[in-house]
């Protein structure tokens, strides 16, 4: 049973509410040093699973092992020394400074009076630094931006010094560059001190790139665990998320909106510009077919056979910026992307 490399493991775990199991038969593990992303459609039970793993609601069946101990037999403080959670809920923290907030993470480590020892102060300092909240430490929490607040809450969880760290939608309130930064940071946190980090997220694209492993929850209540690439190749990601017109494209790792592609275009020219031109054309219901220099943009579903195309486009990076030349039917034109799209629409 003793396995330091697996901070958290479930055994035939069922989660949900009395009379309504949301997920069941879960046999998964979080390994030390790994970032795992928990993905699934809304209402599939991601939060319920996180809450159950954190001991905030009882499992319906099965067991949760924290390192070598059965979580059900673990006193609350002992569990809190192994596992920390960061939730999405916004809150008013008033006069609490970021440092005070991080100090609350030492709750399960201190005596009845909550007096902080040297070890506690060291853990608080480390938590603040690792979460990137060191510069914020003297600021009152109610003056922080959403991103700063998130870092402060993360610092508190890290000060708790857990072997397993659970985060519920940590990127929800952040803009895209910060989301990418946050996910990379979480991965580094997992690597640095051999923690196991589990993150629930809606950000499939980000999870595919950053996670060491995915836990994929389907609407039917099944959980598949695997490397992101394995799950993409096997079609499991498409099976979980495809809905109506939106489908996961295995070739690009992106979701595509399936309009029926009425026309096709052959693209040539500067690869970067061709890539974005293909995106723009896709929006207009025009599928791109590969031409010379358009590597990686053969993103259509193959309905337009290579070589035959209704439209020819050549995109070039000139001295006065990029320019487009196009030929559709009998008409020809030259100009900006917007001018081309307008012409093709007509």
């Amino acid at each position: 049973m003793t396995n330091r490399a697996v901070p958290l493991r479930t055994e035939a775990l069922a989660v949900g509410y009395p009379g309504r199991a949301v997920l069941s038969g879960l046999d998964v593990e979080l390994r030390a040093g790994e970032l795992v992303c928990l993905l699934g459609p809304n209402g599939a039970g991601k939060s319920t699973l996180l809450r159950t793993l954190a001991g905030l609601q009882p499992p319906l069946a099965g067991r949760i092992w924290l390192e070598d101990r059965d979580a059900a037999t673990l006193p609350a403080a002992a569990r809190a020394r192994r596992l920390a959670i960061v939730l999405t809920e916004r809150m008013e923290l008033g006069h609490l400074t970021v440092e005070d907030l991080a100090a609350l993470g030492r709750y399960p480590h201190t005596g009845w009076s909550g007096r902080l020892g040297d070890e506690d102060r060291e853990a608080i300092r480390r938590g603040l630094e690792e979460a990137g909240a060191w510069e914020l430490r003297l600021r009152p929490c109610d003056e922080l931006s959403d991103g700063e607040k998130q870092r402060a809450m993360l610092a508190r969880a890290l000060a708790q010094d857990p072997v397993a760290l659970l985060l519920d939608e940590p990127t929800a309130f952040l803009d895209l560059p910060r989301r990418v930064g946050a996910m990379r940071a979480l991965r580094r946190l997992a690597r640095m001190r051999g923690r196991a980090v589990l993150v629930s997220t809606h950000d499939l694209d980000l999870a595919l790139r950053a996670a060491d492993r995915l836990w994929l929850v389907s609407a039917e209540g099944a959980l598949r665990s695997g490397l992101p690439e394995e799950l993409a190749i096997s079609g499991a990601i498409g099976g979980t998320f495809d809905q109506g017109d939106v489908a996961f494209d295995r070739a690009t790792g992106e979701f595509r909106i399936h309009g029926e592609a009425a026309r096709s275009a052959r693209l040539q020219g500067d690869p970067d510009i061709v890539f974005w031109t293909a995106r723009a054309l896709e929006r207009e219901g025009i599928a791109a077919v590969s031409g010379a220099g358009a590597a990686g943009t053969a993103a259509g579903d193959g309905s337009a056979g290579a070589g035959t195309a209704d439209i020819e486009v050549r995109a070039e990076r000139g001295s006065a910026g990029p320019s487009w030349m196009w030929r559709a039917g009998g008409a020809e034109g030259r100009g900006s992307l917007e001018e081309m799209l307008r012409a093709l629409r007509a």
Partner: protein
Amino acid sequence: MMGNPIGPAQERPPIQAAARLPAWAGLVVLAVLLAALLILGLACGSVHVPIHAAASILFGRPVGDPVWRDILWQLRMPRCLTAALAGSGLAVSGLLMQTLFRNPLAGPYSLGISAGATLGVALAVLAGAGAGALPGLPALSHLGPQLGTAGSAVAGAAAVMLLVLAVSRRIRSNSTLLILGLMFGQIAGGLVAVLQAFSDSERLRAFTFWGFGSYAGVTWAQLPALGIATGLGILMAAFCAKPLNALLLGWTYARSLGVNAGRLRAMLLASTSLLAGAVTAFCGPVAFLGLAVPHLCRGMFRTADHRVLLPACVLLGAALSLASDLACRLPGGGRTLPLNAVTALVGAPVVIAILVRRRAARDE
């Protein structure tokens, strides 16, 4: 990038935190303030007693003039001690409620807990839980029935507290909780009015005077009961200081940090009911102290740490309560102001300031 893993750390330039008063220094200041107000409270009144005589009796030294000694010892000392105990008790119960309900306007009065205690007192005094033996509240000199009244008040406070706790689990909105507290208070008030209609005039008069709120009615014989009740309530609160800090993050985080939620809730229920109930039983329903003092302490110490706020509330609650009682005697010539008029004049502006500041913070 290494130093700031989640996004750039410099979203805003780091500013220096507002200078914080060291906790011990602030508490010493409050203790000195309290001692000064105690002496002033002993010295002031219809009969002038010099400050030095008042100070002597406070520090246990003999006082020359026997008239002064009698006035100080028999009249003013119990009144001042009552004021101090009541202020401490109300302030601490207000602090606990504000953290428990995560509501800055929670307090024994605003949530209807005092009204529940009033109903308890009314049941004991007007309906005569002690049969016909009760000649009226202030006249009671022996401890038995007095404890009955106090117990009844604590039970009334606990009943409303339980109701508020139960609904607070379903209600997320702060203002809704306050309105519900107000409604519970109205129901208790309605029941009291019904009891009043059926009680004889002597009991009614005793109850009505009690209802104005006053520190003057408590005698030496009754002080130990008030002292033990407030002491016990504050002691329980002290044991909750650490989990109360965790509760600042809400119940979910508190539980994830290892707080035993059920035990903490029970402790806070017992402590707040005991404090608000006992103080109300002996002094009548006193408004605003419980609500305002915790905010004044937070502002003064610029902290949310209950290990600082609790002793601060004990000291400042007592001091502000003594100051209010002093203000009641301000007109002189035997004329006094009602206690609740003074506490309202001091406390209501604090509440208004809180509301305005919160609104301003949200609109930014």
